[in-house]
């Protein structure tokens, strides 16, 4: 049975892999708390988790570590999420990127979807939303391989 809370701790223990290896997910958020909570959540699905504190770091880690999917906040210092999304999509057009942000206005949704984001999750997220997000990242990543 699934449980869902708004910060997202409990969940199923279903593992999601990509052709027998762990799914590698990059979590980008300037909040240490958010990164910590999301890491716990993703690790329960057997994901390997990478972290970035801002958009600049997200772009660098995308190039260096080749994640299978990226969670991207919008409101971040130095380089924000929309700028980072633009660059990531230029260098890795097929990489699934899901926006995870408090700033989910219709305008931001439209802008990020036009830039190629796979989905947009409004904070606070639920465990169910994260599980669905990983599943869609896994499908997209599998089709890219």
């Amino acid at each position: 049975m699934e449980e869902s809370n708004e910060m997202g701790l409990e969940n199923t223990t279903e593992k999601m892999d990509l052709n027998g290896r762990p799914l590698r997910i990059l979590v980008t958020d300037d909040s240490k708390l958010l990164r910590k909570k999301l890491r716990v959540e993703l690790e329960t699905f057997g994901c390997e988790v990478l972290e970035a504190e801002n958009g600049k770091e997200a772009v660098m880690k995308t190039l260096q570590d080749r994640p299978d999917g990226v969670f991207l906040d919008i409101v971040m210092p130095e380089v924000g999420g929309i700028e980072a999304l633009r660059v990531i999509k230029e260098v890795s057009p097929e990489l699934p990127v899901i926006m995870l942000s408090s700033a989910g206005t219709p305008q931001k949704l439209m802008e990020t979807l036009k830039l190629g984001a796979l989905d947009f999750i409004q904070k606070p997220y639920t465990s169910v939303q994260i599980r669905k997000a990983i599943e869609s990242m896994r499908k997209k990543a599998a089709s890219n391989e």
Partner: protein
Amino acid sequence: MNSLYFAQFLVNEGTLDSQEVKELLRQCEETEPGLAVVALAEGAVSASKLAELMPFEKDAFPHLAVAEGLLFASQVEKLQEVRATDGLKLAQALLDSGKMDFVELGRQMAACGAAEGSPIKDAVRRLAEDNEEPAAESETYAEFTELFMRSLMRFMDTSAVIDFSEPECGGMYATHTVSQRLTGSVSFVSGIYASDKIFVEMAQRYSREMIDEADEMAEDSVAEFLNVVNGLFVVDLGKRDFDLDLETPRIGKNTHPMGSHQLRLCVDTGFGAFALVLAADEFTLKERPF
């Protein structure tokens, strides 16, 4: 009864003063409403019938109500399934403290149910007017504060009210401020100004982590809470075609918020009081550290 805002209704009406409400909210943290209070709020038993039955033990009421023919056993079962809302906890605390009897409680619950508008918005409008804020700012602040208070109750699991006293945060020392600017069609800065003790409690309640000092994780947790609330506000306004952006949150230690058109609201909760600060411009100097 609009049970979410029962406490605010009583404060607005002058039925409870600042000290009384602080004490009652503390009591609410450890109070579970009895079935008599639930039955009264749901209109299943009248206040006068309950008064006639007095005195009775809180836990004895379900049995007594069936024995006296006030409720069917099936009604008792249904009432026992009603969620213990903040308003019901407050009603029980009012009875337990002797501040009200069933008759007075029933009267106040009915008055709260019949009241139009939002008690939170009314409180903010009144304070904004005292502060001589322009009507546009006053409405924005009122709308934001209602969402903030709902989020506070939801994410920090506490009852909360705006009281009309000056917020006390222990002066300028051992305090923390977190603020975030919203820009665009509507522009203002919202912030939380609290003593370190309350700040840590807020961080702990929001993050569900063990946090025992006002460290980076505490700052991060309260900043994230504010970011989430501001985000919800921005989304609400976005549905009405207002386009707003959020800036990154700022953190201040031992500072005193001084913004223009600033409204400092005293927020009482079950774990203590802090100030919700709303202003036209930024009042915290430092950005969130990395």
